[in-house]
């Protein structure tokens, strides 16, 4: 029999222990009953038999003493105990016979004592009573006969007493033996019970608890990330069921994880394919563009001075659009590169104040052509963080170029670097045309250009902010835009100021698809022209 469930096992254990307890009880009660019977032999039979035997001897002794006194004195008053003794004798003898009935050799002894008493009465007492009594009437011969006969009675009586005492002794011995056996047996069964109970209990506890312990280990391993860990279904049914459920859960978890991995891999493949496509297309576009731009230049060199004003305008339009196409292809390449590098941006420790100064320096000449001044505001101390210098330069270049593009001639563009909490803020502000609030969410989408920028015939590819966004994502940062249409725009690049290597984490996980965050959404008009 193999009890399956915990309840069945516990029930079996309790049943076995109860059975053993019952056995101890039965042994005790049986022993006591047996002893009671043994003691009963003494109290109910041997004891009264001794009393009866003694009474018989007493009757006869009374009779013998009375007779002897009458013989010595002749006074008949002494015959009274004689008759009294003989009067009681039959009843006492009957009593003794009753106890000795069918108990050999006691019955024989009792019959012998009775027969000797008759003999003493017939051959001495009654013979002597028929003769005179008093001094000088004693005949030594008869006296001797009487004494001998009475001694025989005493001997028989003594034999009965011995026999009865022997019986009592043996009963007592039996009782002692039974007591010893009862104690020994009850003790032994108790010991066996205790031992068996302990053994069965321990085994059963182990059978229940060991699978639980094993399962707990499996759960611990699973929790620690060991996906191959499984519980071994063993032990009671309930525990096995839990183990099966746990394993099913772990299997399901594995399946989901594998599926998740596949989906992520597919998404990455798609992303890579998109990047490859973008860069291939850009490269392929460059070759014809080289011919177009080159021949336009040769054409201008050769015939520029002989063109009519209308022809010159046409050529200028071609040149302008070739330039625009060139910018578009460059931006597309830069963007696909920035996005492709989400997982392999090279992070070095760099000083933001140097970076802003470099970019400002590079753009001052261009700005001066339109009378725009670039001012820098940054703390005197270094602003150190980990980042990719080339990417961050490109991002800042795009932001400042935008600001210049949308600023009126003679305006001011401000680059401000500051620390806010554990983030660095690089703000680029202009007093340009701003952008309609409704167009804010689209700004960092590819090729999106603000309507007022298009209306104002300000050139651009619609990729500049998308590139900045991608670079911010690569650095675990974000791009924030504030703008009031007609008043100006502030673009803010927020970067985490950590000197720890962010490649340990996933710098691209900060949300590549997220749009720019409007820093102050409560302001009514916030927007930035895209470039």
């Amino acid at each position, binding site marked *: 029999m193999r009890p399956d469930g915990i309840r069945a096992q516990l029930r079996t254990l309790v049943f076995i222990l109860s059975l053993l307890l019952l056995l101890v009880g039965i042994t005790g009660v049986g022993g006591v009953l047996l002893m009671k019977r043994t003691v009963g032999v003494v109290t109910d039979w041997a004891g009264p038999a001794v009393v009866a035997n003694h009474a018989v001897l007493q009757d006869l002794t009374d009779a013998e003493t009375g007779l002897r006194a009458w013989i010595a004195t002749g006074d008949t008053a002494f015959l009274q105990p004689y008759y009294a003794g003989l009067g009681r004798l039959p009843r006492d003898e009957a009593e003794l016979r009753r106890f000795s009935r069918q108990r050999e050799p006691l019955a024989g002894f009792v019959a012998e004592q009775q027969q000797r008493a008759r003999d003493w009465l017939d051959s001495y007492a009654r013979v002597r009573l028929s003769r005179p009594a008093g001094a000088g009437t004693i005949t030594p011969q008869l006296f001797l006969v009487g004494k001998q006969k009475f001694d025989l009675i005493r001997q028989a009586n003594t034999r009965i007493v011995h026999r009865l005492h022997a019986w009592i002794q043996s009963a007592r011995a039996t009782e002692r033996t039974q007591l010893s056996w009862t104690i020994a047996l009850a003790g032994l069964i108790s010991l066996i019970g205790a031992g068996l109970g302990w053994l069965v209990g321990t085994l059963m506890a182990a059978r229940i608890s060991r699978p639980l312990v094993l399962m707990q280990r499996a759960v611990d391993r699973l929790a620690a990330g060991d996906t191959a860990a499984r519980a071994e279904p063993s032990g009671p049914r309930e525990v096995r069921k839990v183990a099966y459920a746990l394993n099913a859960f772990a299997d399901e978890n594995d399946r989901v994880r594998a599926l998740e991995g596949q989906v992520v891999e597919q998404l990455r493949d798609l992303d890579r394919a998109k990047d490859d496509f973008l860069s291939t297309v850009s*490269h392929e576009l*460059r*070759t*014809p*563009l*080289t*011919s*177009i*731009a*080159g*021949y336009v*230049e*040769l054409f201008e*060199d050769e015939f520029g001075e002989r063109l009519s004003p209308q022809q010159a305008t046409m050529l200028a339009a071609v040149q302008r659009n070739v330039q625009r196409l*060139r910018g578009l292809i460059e931006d597309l*390449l830069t963007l696909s*590169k920035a996005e492709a590098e989400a997982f392999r941006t090279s992070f070095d420790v760099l000083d933001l104040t140097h970076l802003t100064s470099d970019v400002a320096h590079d753009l001052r000449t261009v700005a001066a052509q339109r009378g725009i001044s670039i001012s820098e505001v940054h703390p005197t101390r270094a602003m150190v963080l980990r980042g990719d210098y080339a990417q961050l330069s490109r991002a800042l270049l795009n932001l400042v170029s935008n600001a210049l593009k949308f600023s009126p001639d003679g305006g001011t563009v401000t680059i401000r670097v500051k620390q806010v909490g554990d983030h660095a803020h690089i703000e680029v502000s202009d007093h340009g045309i701003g952008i309609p609030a409704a167009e804010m969410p689209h700004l960092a989408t590819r090729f999106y250009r603000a309507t007022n920028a298009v209306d104002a015939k300000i050139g651009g590819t619609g990729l500049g902010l998308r590139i900045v966004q991608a670079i911010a994502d690569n650095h675990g940062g974000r791009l924030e835009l504030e703008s009031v249409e007609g008043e100006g725009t502030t673009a803010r690049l927020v970067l985490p100021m950590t000197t720890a290597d962010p490649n340990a984490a996933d710098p691209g996980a900060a949300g590549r698809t997220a749009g720019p965050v409007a820093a102050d959404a409560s302001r009514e008009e916030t927007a930035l022209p895209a470039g």
Partner: protein
Amino acid sequence: MATIVVADDDADIRDLVVFKLEQSGHQVLAFGDGASAVEACHQQVPELVLLDVMMPGMSGLDACRAMRADPTLATVPVILLTARAQESDIEQGFLVGADDYVVKPFSPRELASRVTAVLQRSRT
């Protein structure tokens, strides 16, 4: 005035380069692939070689490498024309022994001045 070998698989660009360089007074030999260009260099050692990187068959990089392996051509200056602007490509160009590179789309005027600069450097 110098002898220049040009290799580009795109005929329009090839003609553009030839036109500009001839206009600048050079004698130009043009080819559509790297192998022919290297072969021509063996016939007559030029003063400069212009190689497009992306060409079917022998690429510009391979052609440059082949020239550097040949003692008679090892010192001839090479300018690479590349549609790629990635640092790794430029680095590879210098590794195989190119003297300069011009990124497409390029301006013919810029190309002519680069050629002049490289020629001046090699003559001194």
